[in-house]
């Protein structure tokens, strides 16, 4: 009987103290609601700061001479788990009369991309990276298939 009563009141005490603990936490949140984590997205468009590791889409880096670092090795194409990247190569004849492999089109299907970052890791020459853009909605699905190398861009000198 005594042990039963002991257990009974212990249960009540534990229940009340744990409930009060929960209420203390939510009460803290209620009084500190100004420390919000929610982004006021369309309003703060101009001051929006995204986290450093945010992945929006794959882009190819071009310098001011319209040159990129993609050798067309297709390591990214092999690394991609769901066939997002398709690299179409061509052979250019350079000044010394040698044939050299270069990319014709770096085709990127944004609609298939899961932003897994494996292509960026796989790239031996750091030619591609993840951009922070995220407003990707379009009215036609075909618009999501992109060619990442700019027209008439060339492989940068010295990149093998």
């Amino acid at each position, binding site marked *: 009987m005594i042990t039963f009563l002991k257990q009974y009141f212990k249960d*009540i005490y534990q229940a009340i103290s744990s*409930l009060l603990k*929960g*209420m203390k*936490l*939510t*009460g803290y*949140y*209620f009084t*500190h*609601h100004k*420390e*919000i*984590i*929610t982004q*006021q997205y369309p309003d703060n468009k101009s001051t929006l700061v995204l986290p450093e590791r945010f992945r929006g889409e794959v882009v190819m880096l071009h310098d001011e001479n319209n040159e990129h670092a993609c050798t067309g090795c297709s390591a990214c194409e092999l690394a991609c788990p769901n066939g997002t990247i398709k690299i179409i190569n061509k052979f250019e004849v350079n000044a010394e009369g040698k044939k050299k492999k270069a990319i014709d089109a770096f085709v990127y299907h944004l609609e298939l991309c899961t932003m897994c970052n494996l292509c960026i890791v796989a790239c031996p020459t750091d030619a591609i990276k993840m951009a922070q853009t995220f407003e990707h909605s379009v009215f036609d699905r075909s618009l999501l298939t992109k060619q990442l190398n700019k027209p008439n861009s060339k492989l940068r000198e010295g990149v093998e």
Partner: protein
Amino acid sequence: MLRLENISSFIHTSLSNHLSETSVLLLEMTIIALAAITLFALLGLILVLMERKVSAWIQIRLGPNRVGPKGIFQTAADTLKLVLKEGFVPDGADKFLYKLAPFVVMIIAMILLAPIAFAKNFAIWDLNIGVFFITAISSVSVIGILMAGWASNNQYSLLGAMRSGAQIISYEISAGMAILSIVVLTGSLQISDIVASQSNGWWLFKGHIPALIAFVIYIIAVTAETNRAPFDMAEAESELTGGFHTEYAGMRFALFFLAEYINIFIVCAIGATLFLGGWMPFHIGNWEAFNHIMDYIPSSIWFLSKTFFLIFVIMWFRWTFPRLRIDQLLQLEWKYLLPISLFNLLLITLIAIKGWHF
């Protein structure tokens, strides 16, 4: 100074000067009905917005903030949407009961408004069995819920309604015990007497620890009686897709939704009247200056602020505690709240007989 009792007596005298007694009574009843409906509409708008804001702030969100400044017109826009929605009746439903149920729930909430003292000398009907009237009428509201659940011809609705019935009948007892403890201390069932007995201090403070226990039990029991989380077994969105109002849409659903908030307001108003002194200002012993400043605040403000404080506490519960299972719910009532409240009532009676309260 503009006081609610002055307004009501002004209306009464100016009507009595021109009209016969019967027509005055009829006119005053119409005015009261209109005022009650207006109060309900306003309360619905305010409490729903308050609930959404409180829940948002507790979850570190922002809550509604688009319609109007800081989102204050959000609930008005929601109401407009609900009014415009089609109110259909499902096939196989008991049409008459289906249509009647929301009104039953709503009218019972409206009747409960009668004995509540909103300000000094300002109550619709200060009858001598006020507290008993409230407990008696509030237990009828389960019929509306059972009616809705049965008439919908839907197994989820029926389950929700049955759970609600079991729950309300169970928790009625401990709520009654908690109310009874204050009746024992006051020695009267009349609301105005109960408020007057707290002029030198609220029962929550005057009645020592047993009054505090009664207050806690009352809050837990009325949270269950109004079908609020953590006791919202009647709705139980995750199990019963909405419980007794699964089949309801449009304005009929809005009436259930409104009745929930009105019921919260009423039980909090009663809690404030019984334990927190109703419209009585907060006084501390012999601090004359402090007491005088407190007296200057209108009694209606005191009543409303106490009520809204209790409403906030109940909302705080909702957004903090996880929902109980139905067996845990009944276990809590029959194995914990009922024995404790019975023993507590005994203690309170001892205090009242010996005159140990302040």
